């Protein structure tokens, strides 16, 4: 590269600029967040004093313990149930496996607090189950406000990730090993203990950690169901939004990042372990004996029915006139003009924000993936860039949100002599910051999806375009874009769906005029307009399902147009 002519350096400039944007957009805010956690309210460096105070305050410390307990319980439940479910849909002849696959994924498309609301309708004081179906059945009560309710809704929310991770792992475990074990005379339990489980070590660990981290960092469900039960994320919110104690909020948010950081580091290690997997592995054939089929049909469909019941309850509740006194159906909860919050405006805000996130985030993910996978632009920086791009996997949404508050809200950047007016300050409270935080939060998955697709393209195709007169950036438009379009759509769809439902990254960033719908669900619930909150949540879920359906159609259309050409 040393012999590059001066004018070829120009080619590196856009890539270099993009890289700088990444540094400014991620490293600087995190640096400022860490700085706030180590300073007092006036910005004077106090070392670990904030942390010391946190651990001395029994109430605050209790919140850490509570969060660990709730997350641990969620992780155990979600991993175990996810394993049974994943086993059912990959290894047994349960009927309706593709329907089961889809049903398990629905919680991915709704804000977690929708499940909190659903649980209130099921197990709250006037709940469907608590009152025994309004007196038709024996009543059953569950203390839904508190740890039990939080665990239940986190269980539902993290169940899809567990099923995904575990079913991928199970689908990859090698049939040849199973057959070899069987031919050596091993019984089914022995095979499970000596072949299946060891091969599933990493998927199980990653499912456990993913659900642990998901529950640990979630804000929506504990906000709705927590009551007096203190957890970290709500504590941060109280410290920052309620008490204006920003340094303490920053310190707690760093504690909040610990499990996700662990997942991130272990995930990298796990990826190295996965690379040892035999490429010639043959997927195992499903078990077909009757008893297995009956057991797994019962448990898988049971779980799917539970998820569906929760979904349907909240949809039903959103149409009921006055729960539980007047059960006639109406649309009035979908008219948001008379409830707390700002009417239907938040939905429009969310829709706009999700669209911007999908468009800019998708484009950014695609271009970044292309630079990282297909070019040698800014070659020495590529490893660092990759690391920065995947870093949000280690960051809870609240950390990202707080970091952006500190970054965009600061009137000046730098310290001491090297201090200048913050050129990004004017963006604070605007749409740009909301979109940037959301893109950053969900960037890694979008990037990985584009990167995987681009890695599969024959590099000679781009070389051919080069020799035919296309500059490198042009090969991106002519080769990578048309061939990687499904991956780009997937990334954009993923960004859209998550932008619609995310709460944690935005809870500190919104302004009164720009209030995302998922947050207005929190407001309405807070104000006691539970039915309207349910309606808004259902609206978000329906929008997401519609967008995903559209994307699916677009990808099908693309595949049809290209038949088997690619």
């Amino acid at each position, binding site marked *: 590269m040393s012999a590059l002519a001066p004018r070829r350096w120009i080619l590196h400039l856009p890539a270099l600029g993009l890289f700088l944007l990444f540094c400014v957009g991620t490293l600087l805010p995190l640096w400022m967040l860490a700085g706030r956690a180590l300073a007092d309210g006036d910005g004077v460096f106090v070392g670990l004093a904030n942390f010391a105070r946190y651990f001395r305050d029994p109430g605050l410390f209790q919140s850490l313990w509570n969060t660990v307990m709730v997350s641990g319980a969620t992780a155990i439940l979600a991993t175990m149930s996810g394993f049974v479910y994943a086993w059912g849909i990959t290894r047994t002849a349960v009927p309706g496996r593709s329907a089961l696959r889809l049903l398990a994924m629905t919680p991915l498309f709704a804000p977690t607090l929708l499940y909190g609301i659903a649980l209130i309708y099921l197990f709250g004081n006037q709940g469907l189950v608590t009152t025994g179906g309004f007196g038709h059945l024996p009543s059953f009560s569950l203390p839904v406000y508190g740890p039990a309710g939080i665990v239940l809704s986190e269980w539902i929310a993290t169940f899809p990730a567990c099923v995904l991770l575990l079913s991928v792992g199970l689908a990859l475990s090698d049939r040849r090993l199973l057959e070899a074990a069987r031919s050596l005379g091993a019984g089914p339990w022995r095979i499970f203990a000596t072949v299946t489980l060891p091969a599933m070590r990493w998927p199980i660990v990653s499912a456990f950690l993913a659900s642990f981290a998901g529950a640990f960092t979630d804000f929506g469900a504990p906000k709705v169901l927590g009551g007096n039960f203190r957890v970290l994320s709500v504590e941060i919110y109280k410290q920052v939004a309620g008490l204006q104690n920003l340094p303490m909020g920053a310190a707690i948010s760093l504690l909040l990042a610990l499990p996700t950081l662990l997942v991130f580091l272990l995930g990298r290690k796990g990826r190295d372990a996965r690379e040892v997997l035999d490429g010639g592995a043959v997927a195992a054939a499903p078990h077909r004996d009757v008893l297995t089929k009956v057991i797994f049909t019962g448990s898988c469909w049971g779980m799917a029915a539970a998820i569906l019941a929760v979904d349907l309850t909240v949809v039903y509740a959103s149409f009921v006139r006055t729960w539980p006194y007047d059960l006639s159906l109406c649309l009035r909860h979908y008219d948001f003009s008379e409830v707390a919050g700002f009417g239907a405006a938040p939905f429009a805000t969310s829709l706009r924000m999700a669209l911007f996130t999908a468009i800019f985030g998708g484009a950014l993910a695609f271009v970044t993936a292309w630079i990282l996978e297909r070019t040698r632009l800014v070659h020495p920086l590529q490893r660092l860039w990759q690391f920065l791009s995947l870093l949000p996997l280690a960051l809870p949404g609240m950390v990202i949100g707080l970091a952006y508050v500190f970054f965009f809200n600061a009137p000046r950047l730098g310290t001491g002599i090297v201090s200048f007016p913050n050129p990004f300050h004017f963006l604070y409270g605007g749409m740009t910051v909301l979109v940037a935080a959301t893109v950053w939060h969900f960037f890694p998955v979008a990037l990985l999806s584009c990167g995987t697709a681009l890695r599969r393209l024959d590099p000679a195709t781009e070389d051919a375009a*080069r020799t*035919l007169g296309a500059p490198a950036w042009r090969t991106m438009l002519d080769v990578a874009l048309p061939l990687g379009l499904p991956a780009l759509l997937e990334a954009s769809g993923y960004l859209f769906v998550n932008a619609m439902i995310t709460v944690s990254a935005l809870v500190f960033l919104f302004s009164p005029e720009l209030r995302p719908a998922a947050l207005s669900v929190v407001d309405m619930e807070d104000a006691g307009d539970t039915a309207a909150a349910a309606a808004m949540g259902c609206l978000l879920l329906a929008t997401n399902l519609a967008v995903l359906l559209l994307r699916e159609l677009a990808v099908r259309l693309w595949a049809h147009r290209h038949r088997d050409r690619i």
Partner: protein
Amino acid sequence: MIASLPAVATAAPPETTLPDREGLSVKGLCHSYGKVPVLEAISLRLAAGEFLSLLGPSGCGKTTLLRLIAGLEPLTTGSVRIDGQEVSQLPAERRGVGMVFQSYALFPNLDVRGNVGYGLRRRRIPRAQAARETEALLERVGLSDFGGRFPSELSGGQQQRVALARALAIAPRLLLLDEPFSALDAKVREETRLWVRSLQRETGVTTVLVTHDQEEAMAVSDRIALLEGGRLVQTGTPDELYRHPATLFVAGFLGTANRFPGIFLPRLDAALEANKDLEAVVRPEDLQLMSPESDGIPVRLCDESFLGPFRRLVVRDTQERMYLCLQASGKPLPVRLGAFASLTARPGSVLRFRDTHLVTA
């Protein structure tokens, strides 16, 4: 298959002397991946219109050299000149080089016409003119009826012709072929390479072919450059390389080389003296199998197969070293299978090597 390959004007006999104008020149080119050197001090010069093959075993750096010439790898040391113009600092898209890839690398999302016309669109040639040129090229490669097809709807041979038409569409100053025939089956491969050669003669484009197939290199090239471990071992016409291989490696890589210890020299050719520092190489067609009484290396006839014009004989000496011998099939065998005979070489045909290098004189 040959019927579907369009005829190329063959009226003009192949030029025996190439013009003196330079087509491609590579000087002092070195390249390494990290700390591993892959090419060392490569220098080459092609006359305009010349067809040169870069030949060598896999991993010898030949494809890397081709990519460096095309500008697809960044050049660190040395220089490349195409058609008299220094291009070392030009990116691939400005070198005017047509390239055919081993995988053909057609754009799967474009039809045949779109593929062939791609380079013209990048050059902002007016639409109507580009369409005319595309059709003319399609006709030339015999794919006029396939313009609307997509690459996945074509056979391997047809895809290869699209790739060639696409490379020729930009009227390249230099055509680079990276193992273009290796994915074709044997019969189609032989026809296609002869057709490509005549097309190249007709267009007169300077061409570099990368191949590991010595037979292919000898069949189509004006000259062959043989690479071994990142170094250029010998450059010359197929004839030169075959008859005067610079090293034992060249002798073994092109054609079959029967190797004899130096003490056998007088027995192979009475005019030569025994010398244990030397190693002798004789081509199979230069070996003669005589009756056991005559003077030569005593060998046993182990195997015999009939190849039409030739008989292929396998013989072993008393040390069980194996030699291969080709004899005109009209000539009767001096001994029966399994019997002893005497092996000599045609006078003047023995190549002698000292420390793997050819001894001239």
